């Protein structure tokens, strides 16, 4: 099946997901509320003598984004489960690929939305508004793409697994660890005013991570979804 068909069907399924998310709103509200709570808890947790330290920003930012994105991942296939439509959506003229890519893009949309909310909150609450953001934004973009690809794969494979809510993070986080460490390092080095060469190395690692999973994830998903 042609790339054009896959893209067209991915677009149709993504429009469906956006429409469903806009009408039910439950996942977006749940994820955003969770992210806000996380930042607030961290802000109070790291309060020392009436001030918070900017050096905790990398950890707080990345952990909040990972946790909030995981909440979205747990709901990623909810519409298919509720409708009993998973097998119908998998069986498109282009196979399971459009479903995988539409879900990964939807996850990216959710985590992008969370980032747009969480990043300014973290910078303000942790008194870090003057830090350079260029490298951090690049790392966030790469990290969220990697998380969407691996997360969609793991979430998709666990649709019918019991105790999925517990198992998903247990399987997901070890796989994401290289990308997560690299993201935290980029933010930390960037705040500390470290060398751009080192930042470049960590960003390259994230690019490689994403490149591996942009190829491996849809392939593995298609293999596992075909009887």
């Amino acid at each position, binding site marked *: 099946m042609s790339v054009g068909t896959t893209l067209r*069907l991915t677009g*149709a399924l993504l429009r469906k997901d956006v429409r*469903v998310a806009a*009408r039910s709103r439950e996942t977006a509200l749940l994820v955003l509320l969770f992210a806000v709570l996380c930042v607030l808890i961290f802000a109070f947790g790291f309060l020392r003598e009436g001030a918070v330290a900017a050096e905790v920003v990398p950890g707080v930012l990345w952990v909040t984004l990972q946790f909030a994105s995981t909440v979205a991942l747990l709901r990623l296939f909810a*519409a298919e489960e509720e409708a009993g439509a998973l097998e119908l959506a998998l*069986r*498109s003229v282009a196979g399971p690929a459009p479903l995988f890519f539409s879900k990964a893009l939807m996850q990216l949309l959710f985590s992008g939305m969370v980032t747009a909310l969480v990043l300014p909150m973290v910078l303000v609450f942790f008194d870090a508004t003057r830090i350079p953001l260029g490298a951090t934004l690049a790392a966030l973009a790469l990290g969220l793409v990697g998380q969407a690809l691996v997360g969609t794969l793991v979430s998709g494979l666990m649709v019918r697994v019991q105790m999925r809510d517990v198992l998903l993070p247990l399987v997901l986080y070890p796989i994401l660890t290289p990308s997560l460490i690299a993201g935290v390092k980029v933010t930390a080095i960037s705040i500390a005013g470290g060398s751009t060469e080192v930042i470049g190395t960590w960003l390259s690692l994230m690019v490689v991570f994403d490149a591996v999973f942009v190829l491996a994830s849809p392939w593995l998903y298609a293999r596992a979804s075909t009887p």
Partner: protein
Amino acid sequence: MSGEPLLRATGIAAAMDRRYVLLDLDVSLHPGEIVAIAGPNGAGKTTLLRVLEGVRRPERGEVRLGGVPMHEASAASLARRVGVIGHHTGLYLDLSAVENLRLFATLAGRDLDAAAALAILADVGLARADACRPVRHYSRGMAQRAALARLLATGADIWLLDEPSTGLDREGCALLHRLLRDAADAGRALCVVSHDPALLEVADRVLHLVAGRLQAEEAA
């Protein structure tokens, strides 16, 4: 029934929890034919339908779609040719029936505009106002009608239906019988799992399953 079957399953055996739930079954679906599968609860009817659908690979035996082994059939061929109504209607609850029909037609490689979707939904007795409401607000019977419309929208030539009369009122059942007969007369091959005696009467052949084995076959 003469001619090449659209779907043929031979020597099917399927196991669950180390116990065979289907054993040595042969089923063929010819164009223009309605085959009903009847039997008590736990006889293996739904499992057989899932094997025919290609979502469950049998432990033994083979299913062929137009002469090609099911597991070798292309995604395009499966999506275009096999239409299914299972225990769920398969409709997205936060989309309207029109939106559902257009989406599933797209996934099956067909273009369906809103007017054509509305016409199909009118054929199954769903008025325009209902067709444009989210499926979440439908009764079970209305959702079942919309699921039948989904089959029509995808243009599949093999229909596999599990208890399609679920939730339908008397008028809805009459509509279902007419739709099935029209679909068969149009050259489609249909396999229907049902306990409904009226629905079994619409079938050309009835296969009685007991404990995963074919106990009897009746021609109408």
